[in-house]
């Protein structure tokens, strides 16, 4: 089936959510995504989601599986000149690079934008980083909720009159929204490269993406230095505890609401019938059970594992998972044969020299 990005190939160095999910969204639109890891540096999601210490633990992480379906996986050592050579050869056959390493990592390996552009001038290179590729804080590290804080989102979140709040490690909200924007910009640049033959260096700052969601507040503050904001609890309504101990949220003009005699579903139904916007405060199990909410946003892969679906519907449908997330190095040989014409002898030499592998050389990352 022809899809919008059929014929586009992505060299994916994306890790965790911000990078790896941008490539996943490109795969969902038809791109051929080849994910590069190495035995010496796994996608941290393989480790964060570690279920046990048994052989092959690095292939069983739910978080990794959620984000990397519909990709092929290669393990090539970026620190080894042999691995760098193979990746430069692969770049010739790719249209897009997605990476979210700390700034400078790919440059030091001779795999930065300038190096790859010299090999393939139409390459679209999406560099997704905490603070962007320039500026005094470009080398700063962050992890998910660091950016809730530094972007301004936390300053507007919290119980009224109390300290600000972050979305926390089970949400890491700023990480989740980057790919929703970056994917569209990459597609825009791919369209441009198809027309002009020229690629682009796309420099994304995750912190800026998060602050962009508060654009009107920043704008208002620029007009009025007295535009000061603090946590205000739940605006445009509130959360209420029902008789069954569960919570609902409702947008009411008069904040007084007593639903202590009703269970959650009855309370929501009664409010909706009065024309009031209301909803249960769903937890993860509620979301799994709601067939319409989970309809396209969650999917099962061929092994029955639950994985991430689509944030939108295309022609009314979601996606089918054509391949489960790859085991470490699962497709190294197949892809090097297919794209670079490598034979048995070359593949064996790469394996013997440690450039390729299927097992990690590290326990924790």
């Amino acid at each position: 089936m022809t899809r919008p990005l059929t014929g586009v190939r992505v060299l994916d160095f994306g890790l965790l959510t911000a990078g790896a999910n941008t490539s996943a969204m490109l795969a969902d639109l038809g791109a051929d995504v080849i994910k590069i890891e190495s035995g010496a540096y796994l996608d941290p999601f393989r480790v964060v989601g570690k279920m046990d210490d048994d052989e092959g633990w690095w292939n069983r992480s739910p978080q990794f599986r959620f984000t990397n379906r519909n990709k092929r996986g290669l393990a090539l050592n970026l620190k080894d000149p042999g691995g760098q050579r193979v990746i430069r050869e692969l770049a010739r056959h790719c249209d897009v690079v997605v990476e979210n390493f700390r700034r400078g990592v790919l440059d030091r390996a001779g795999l930065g934008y300038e190096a790859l552009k010299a090999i393939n001038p139409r390459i679209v290179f999406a560099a997704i980083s905490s603070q962007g590729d320039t500026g005094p804080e470009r080398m700063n590290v962050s992890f998910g909720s660091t950016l809730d804080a530094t972007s301004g989102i936390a300053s507007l979140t919290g119980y009224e009159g109390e300290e600000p709040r972050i979305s926390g490690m089970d949400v890491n909200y700023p990480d989740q929204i980057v790919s929703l924007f970056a994917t569209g910009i990459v597609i825009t640049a791919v369209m441009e490269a198809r027309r002009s033959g020229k690629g682009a260096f796309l420099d994304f700052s995750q912190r800026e993406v998060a602050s962009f969601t508060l654009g009107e507040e920043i704008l208002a503050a620029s007009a009025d230095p007295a535009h000061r904001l603090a946590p205000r609890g739940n605006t445009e309504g509130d959360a209420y505890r029902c008789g069954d101990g569960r919570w609902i949220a409702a947008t009411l003009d008069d904040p007084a609401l007593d639903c202590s005699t009703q269970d959650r579903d009855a309370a929501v139904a009664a409010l909706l019938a009065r024309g009031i916007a209301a909803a249960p405060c769903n937890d993860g199990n509620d979301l799994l059970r709601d067939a319409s909410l989970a309809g396209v946003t969650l999917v099962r892969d061929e092994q029955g594992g639950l994985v991430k679906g689509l944030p939108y519907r295309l022609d009314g449908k979601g996606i089918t998972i054509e391949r489960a997330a790859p085991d470490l190095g699962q497709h190294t040989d197949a892809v090097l044969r297919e794209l670079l014409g490598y034979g048995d002898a070359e593949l064996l030499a790469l394996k013997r020299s440690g450039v390729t592998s299927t097992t990690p050389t590290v326990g924790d990352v």
Partner: protein
Amino acid sequence: MTTDSLPLQRFTIVEVNDTGVPLCLRLATSLAAKIAADLGADVLKIEPPGGDPVRRAPPLLANGNGPGASALFQFLNTSKRSLVLDLKTESGRANLAALLDRSHACLFEEPASIAPLARGGKATAIEIAAFPAEMNAAARPVSELAIQALGGLMHMIGEPGRKPLKLGGHQASYAAGLTAFTGLTAALAAREAGQRAPHVRVSLAEVMQWVNWKAASGAAATGASPGREGKASEFQVVPCRDGHVAVVYTVTQWPATRNLIGDPRLQDEKFATRAGRRKHIAELYEIIAPWFADKTRAEIQKTAQAKGVPFGPIFTPAELLETEQYVARGFLAKMTHPDIGRLLIPQLPVQWNGRSFAPRPAPTLERAELAA
């Protein structure tokens, strides 16, 4: 792309603002179209007589005489043109149909009276809705708060024994707006490749659920849903001399974090593993909190970053105007508003070959009505 051309400038896009649409949907549609407009697309915004209600929505831009234009409207409608059409009339709908036949894509909110018109034209339809198609939207009033509840985000924020909290800002609307922008580019890419473009439908509820995937993934893996942990969480907000700092570190960053704080009690075996730290979290925070109390956010950030520890000082939108990193990157563009004067507005959060996309001010209603 040359320096004077913009990447989407060959595309014409219509954004339809039908009457009676919930605010949270309006914001999503407007954001998606604004991104396309800042990237050069010719975006024509169709407003009802009297204008898009967002023109009156807070926060308002202060001018010398008190409240003025809506900052929300200004932010969400940069670089667009605007046209007032009464879509309740035959001629208004005929005008829209003619516009759609000359356009590449149409963004609109569903349910809308013009939905059949928008779906049937030559322009690719990008629909923004509150709920998945299976949920009866007509029987479900909607708000940003209700979507954050439904998508499970509120369950994740706050103290476990207290009420769930909404994440600040219009996050449900904006996440859906970013999604609709990406759906729009996919449709344009398909058209340009000579394919039939897919019909794109974005619902705020599905986007919120998708963004909050770790709740579902956690529940599926263990049977128990993750939820708000508040003071039991490893990541907490602590006060410092001039505000607050979010304490954030990964498992591998714990040794550096422990050394940064430098209290010998942190060497205790019980803090050596993540499980141990979680079990003794109150005690851990008692030990580390004093380190923050006498330092400023700037000192904390500098000292922590030097050790590779990602603590996050909490800044307000007003403070972001002066953030060194944002100033150095030119993230905030100068924009002159006809009534208020010079403003600073966040640009699209991407630099393309080092270039930013400076937005043009949102269209005024007076000029729009003249154009109609």
